[in-house]
């Protein structure tokens, strides 16, 4: 479930990044790299788990599934927070700088 949530987040981020390109003001590339990197790593984790559990891997207990979903959503939220911090620090549109320094007429 965590893998599935992260893959969907990676796909949505990549589509958004493509729509924003070539300007790339929103720095969505960071999100794409994070989510795709984690997706690839969790895919490996899933393959190893499948090799151990076989078909049982696809029928997890509801409690485990809920926990994995909760984890997946938390991972997506963490990724968004990292991206937001980097966006505000980079401040490509100068919005934060504009709010901090008032212009004199």
């Amino acid at each position: 479930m965590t893998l599935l949530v992260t893959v969907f987040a990676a796909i949505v981020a990549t589509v958004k990044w493509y729509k924003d390109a070539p300007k790339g003001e929103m720095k969505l590339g960071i999100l794409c790299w994070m989510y795709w990197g984690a997706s690839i790593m969790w895919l490996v984790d899933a393959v190893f788990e499948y090799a151990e559990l076989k078909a049982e891997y696809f029928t997890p207990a509801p409690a485990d599934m809920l926990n994995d979903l909760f984890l997946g959503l938390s991972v997506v939220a963490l990724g968004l927070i990292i991206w937001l911090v980097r966006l505000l620090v980079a401040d490509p549109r100068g919005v934060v700088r504009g709010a901090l320094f008032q212009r004199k007429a």
Partner: protein
Amino acid sequence: MACFLVPATEAIVATVIRKAMEAKGVKPEKVKLNRDGRIETAEKLPFTHKLKWLTNLLWGGSALLAFEHVWHGEVVPWFPFLTAAADPADAAEMLHEMSTVGVTMAVLITVVWLGMVAVSGALENRALKPQAAKN
């Protein structure tokens, strides 16, 4: 248990290599592109930029996986930071997981990156080909 440490280590090594290459300051190769009859000068994507794709994948993935390990109580904010490291039997299991799952993660990320480098190289060559044919 601590599988993310292997790609994280690769991320450190790749970042050091990238920084060293950037410090050398190799200028990107300039090429001329023919776009709808107009000749444009463009810069070829330097290898350090492509290496950044790898470090981004490794750092991003490792960061989110580290969070997962905190979630499962496998990483803690006090010494020895990895709960499995406190017990020799668990430590052996952790090292086994790192050498199997962790190494496979690092290898797969690298393979995906090599694929991206190959595809981008092919796209660059395709963009330059009509120009070369005209010359």
